[in-house]
């Protein structure tokens, strides 16, 4: 199945792109998507302990299920305001 991966701020810079299309095998979770991405781009790993994740623009947990067509986002610590 196919998911859209969204990356922001420094995660985006490290990956060289803010939006990636990726194939993952079902059944998948956010963690599955992350692990395959981190294997591909090892520099991302430093964010594993501090990032937040979202599925289809809702905050989610690493264990959340991911389905075909979903948008999975990885968010570094926020600095708005």
């Amino acid at each position: 199945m196919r998911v859209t991966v969204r990356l922001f701020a420094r995660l985006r810079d490290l990956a060289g792109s803010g939006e990636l299309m990726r194939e993952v095998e079902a059944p998948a979770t956010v963690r599955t998507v992350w692990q395959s991405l981190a294997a591909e781009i090892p520099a991302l790993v430093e964010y594993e302990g501090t990032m937040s994740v979202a599925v289809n623009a809702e905050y989610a947990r690493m264990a959340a299920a991911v389905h075909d067509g979903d948008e999975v986002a990885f968010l570094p610590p926020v600095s708005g305001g």
Partner: protein
Amino acid sequence: MPLAAVTREPLDLQALTRDLVQGTPGDGAVAAFTGLVRHRNQGRTVHFLEYEAYEPLAAKALERIINEARETWPAIRMGMHHRIGRLEIGDASIIIVAASPHRADAFAACRYAIERVKQIVPIWKREHFEGGEIWLEGAPADPDDEQAKLIAHKIACV
């Protein structure tokens, strides 16, 4: 414009306030917060900032904060606009308005809201300073973190 919004346009506190208090003759108090881009940060001379957002989630997070505030202070109404894109020194990056029959609630809700923005809204600033550029990173965002909410309530002096 909706009461909770992420926008590339300059912010207008007067318009947001007018929208918020129109037709609510029971409100006697309006507390407002405006965040401005500063020329210095952590000893660096700042040239400008670039704000990036995960826009749909950021708008929902602002709405979530408004709902949280209304759980604690049921009588308040709140509006919040966050600007993104390139902002110059002195530009407003965020405006928050809280209206209420009484001032204590309006102040507390406004104070609470800006703390929560910094905790859970997926927006990031890239600082362009004299000598380089850097992504600023604050808090790992977890809207369900009760400890973070408690801190925000404590700061709001509830």
